[in-house]
């Protein structure tokens, strides 16, 4: 069993299943904060998936996308936290 076959048959389905599970929480999350946390975790999973794709296709440039996504995930979390804090009433 080669490495690329193993990655395509075992690792990518695990990551896809976890993305589906996180998407369930993104849909049913009772509050806005739950959805923000689910979105953050979804982007983190996407970073892992991108690095697996970089190994499968032997393409080095894909990890640059992972760096940008890691930065944008933090930005979205901070922005949503700012607007949730704006909603606080006395």
């Amino acid at each position, binding site marked *: 069993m080669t490495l690329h076959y193993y990655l395509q048959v075992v*690792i990518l389905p695990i990551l896809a299943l976890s993305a589906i599970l996180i998407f369930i929480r993104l849909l049913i999350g009772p509050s806005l904060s739950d959805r923000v946390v689910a979105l953050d975790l979804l982007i983190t999973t996407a970073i892992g998936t991108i690095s697996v794709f970089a190994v499968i296709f032997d393409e080095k440039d894909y990890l640059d996308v992972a760096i940008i996504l890691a930065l944008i995930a933090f930005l979205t979390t901070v922005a949503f936290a700012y607007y949730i804090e704006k909603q606080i009433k006395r």
Partner: protein
Amino acid sequence: MDYLIMVIITFGALFVLFAAIGIVRMPDLYLRLSVTTKAATLGVGMILISGAVYFSEPSMTTRALAVVFFLLLNAPVGAHLIGKASYFAGIPLWKKTVLDDIKGSKDDYLALKNGEDEDRNKNTDTESQKPEADV
């Protein structure tokens, strides 16, 4: 070398799967936050490190370590911000929660937040009034 990559990446994917199961099954926003910050960061970090081992070049290792560094730096900060904002916005805790250290401190939080705003307004007011006084 392939088997080392397989082992590391399998553990990483399993940690991401555990984080996904945890975010669906956990009863509370704050427990879900703990899942997001710990398990997912560890899992994605292991996947990235296995990618660095596969390419085994200095440039790729640097990129992977940069992503791991960003994740390790950003996950606790983002979780703290979301948790604090959600707690004071009134997201309820789990009903079996035993300990709540900052219970009843919402007034202090609001006083701190609004007090800082008022001080800032005062400073701007005095600054805007100074030129008029000179004139």
